[in-house]
């Protein structure tokens, strides 16, 4: 359902440039790295090789538990050095560079495991110390490790480690609200990265914006799958309703902003129906904020014309609706009634919105 990006010629023409302005660099523009299935194959072999090295270290007991943190730091440094030797643009890599990039990636993941155990041993399991140290590591990797996948991992994991830090706080109510605030900050930060993407990609943050945008989106959706994460036992639950309310405000602000950018009145009858529907959705799903987060991801995916983000939104919506349905403490009969009622409200709201929007073109090509 997303719009594909315009062709290169159309984009250049829209920017006031000759359609053939890119012809001089056509070779560069089309320069193929390896196709994804070759990357998958050599990446899988690199992972197997790196894990075999890990098996060797574990089997021989060469690393003492007290030295895990040192080895973790060394592994992180080595992974950064290895990664900086190859091209940072994954699309420009050949299969050999892909292989080396995957080795470096495994090394960085191994560094994380070693540091968690090592710092945990030193700090006697203090979650604030472990989480804080890992946040620092993720920030270092995010900045110094020039790789899309690594920055995606680092941005999402840094937020996860912040939640781990909260695990050391005794005040459960404080943690519940703080957790929702962390998630909301990540959601609004991620939304900004996607909304302001054209400007960010042209500036100094070009290498960081997109992977961080994906990382924060995955974190928000994952963190809001409440019970699933609570099942790991390391995170206390959030308060939920503040996250739902904040996300509802965010979705409404996004819709109003889009209307303004399209030259439409920011608030009119059509917008009012959308706001009422978002508010109704927020009220009905106040214990499952992930549903509104998924709707927000869908909107951002459409806005940014990004198929991957849009796909994440579709998967997240399916998962959170299923989780919502599964988690309701009601009989199957009541659950089915709630689903049908929710569906009919949405379909009815759509019917009213189409009439108030007053634009028959909407349904022309349905």
């Amino acid at each position, binding site marked *: 359902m997303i719009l594909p990006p315009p062709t290169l010629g159309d984009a250049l023409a829209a920017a006031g440039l000759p359609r053939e302005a890119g012809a001089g660099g056509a070779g560069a523009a089309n320069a193929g790295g390896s196709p994804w299935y070759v990357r998958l194959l050599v990446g899988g072999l690199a992972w197997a090789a790196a894990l075999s090295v890990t098996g060797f270290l574990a089997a021989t007991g060469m690393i003492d538990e007290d030295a895990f943190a040192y080895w973790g730091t060394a592994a992180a440094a080595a992974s950064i050095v290895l990664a900086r030797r190859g091209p940072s643009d994954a699309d420009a890599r050949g299969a050999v560079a892909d292989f080396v990039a995957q080795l470096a990636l495994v090394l960085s993941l191994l560094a994380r495991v070693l540091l968690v155990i090592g710092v945990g041993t030193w700090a006697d399991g203090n979650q604030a110390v472990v989480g804080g140290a890992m946040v620092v590591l993720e920030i270092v990797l995010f900045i110094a490790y020039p790789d899309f996948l690594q920055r995606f991992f680092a941005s999402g994991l840094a937020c996860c480690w912040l939640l781990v830090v909260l695990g050391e706080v005794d005040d459960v109510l404080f943690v519940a609200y703080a957790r929702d605030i962390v998630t909301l900050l990540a959601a609004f930060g991620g939304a900004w990265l996607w909304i302001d993407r054209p400007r960010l990609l042209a500036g100094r943050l070009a290498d960081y914006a997109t992977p961080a945008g994906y990382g924060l989106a995955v974190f928000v959706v994952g963190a809001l799958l409440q019970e699933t994460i609570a099942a790991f036992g390391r995170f206390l639950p959030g308060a939920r309703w503040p996250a739902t309310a904040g996300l509802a405000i965010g979705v409404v602000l996004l819709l109003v902003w889009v209307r303004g950018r399209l030259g439409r009145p920011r608030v009119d009858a059509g917008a009012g129906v959308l706001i009422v529907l978002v508010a109704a959705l927020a009220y009905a799903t106040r214990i499952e904020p992930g549903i509104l987060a998924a709707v927000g991801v869908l909107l951002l995916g459409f806005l940014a014309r990004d198929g991957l983000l849009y796909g994440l939104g579709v998967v997240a919506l399916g998962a959170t609706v299923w989780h919502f349905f599964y988690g309701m403490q009601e009989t199957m009969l009541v*659950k089915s009634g709630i689903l049908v009622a*929710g569906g009919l409200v949405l379909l009815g709201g759509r019917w009213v919105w189409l009439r108030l929007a007053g634009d028959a073109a909407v349904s022309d090509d349905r």
Partner: protein
Amino acid sequence: MSSPTRPATPARLRRLHAAGALDADGYRRALAAALALPPAAAWRRFLDRLMLAIGATLTVTGIVAFFAYNWASLGRLGRVGLVELALVTVGGVALWAGVDRLGGQLAGMAAVALTGVLLGAIGQAYQQGADPWTLFAVTAALGLPWLMATRFAPLWLLELILANLALGLWWIIDLGDDGGAVARFLLALSALNGGAWLSWTQGAASAGLSAGRWLPRVVALAALAPLAIGAAAYVAIDVLRYDAGPDDLRFGPSGLAVFVVWVAVTAAILVLFRRRWPDLFMLAAAMLGICTVLTAGMFRWLIEWVQRSSDVGAPWLVMAAFLLAEGGLTAVWLRRQQLAMAAAEDDSP
């Protein structure tokens, strides 16, 4: 020069900028144009469809959940009748929408799936003791008229999946602990999917089926995977095990047959898909099979080593070195083939 017709992705624009084809200002403007906000009509269409999709999904799911809640209290006739009603409805939708249009084709595919559900419901209500494979085989057979009517590639794939399931369930009755039967099953599975691949590549276009290049690739993988798995298992279990007991699993002559067929098919792919029909995907699939067999063999050899000595560390290191060499060589070879194919494409008139 095909470049201007390619999608203006940020990565492509950036490479143009890095190559000097776009200056900083041009790059910024081109990015803004490529990532421009979708127009108002597109937004309205998107929101309309989003509400329709979510609303319809919630309503249908609620209705299904309602019947699931009451399923146990429905009689035999009620259950079968309910599925029949759904089948007639989607069949009617397919005919109403037109079997040559996407909506009708999707409804036709749903009708095939519901045929299977109906057969299952009848089998549950009036148990005859039939083997499960017959359910999938009969569903596939009853789906053929829909396939011929809709000429819908995903339905062709569904029919192939049903045939695979029927074959698997039919063979599993006979498998037991007999390695030879497993090997023959893998051969049969590969033959089924290999035949499907051949029929697709030779006759799909003339039959009005089209699905780009991914469907035949998926089917080719489904044909190659049983051979590679069978060959790897034969090497690891029959060839490199030195002290097998009389009751241990063996693939025997059938395993050898799988291995020989795998070698022949892999060699054919490496010869034919390098120059005659250049396709890097098929070469990568063949390399995946080679790596699987070699790695399984090395793994088995290392297990034998561990069993004969107390050294637990060195085998891991040997395995790591082997995988590094295997991965590196595979990467280098595939890269060379990719560049050679690209060069040949550029040279072609």
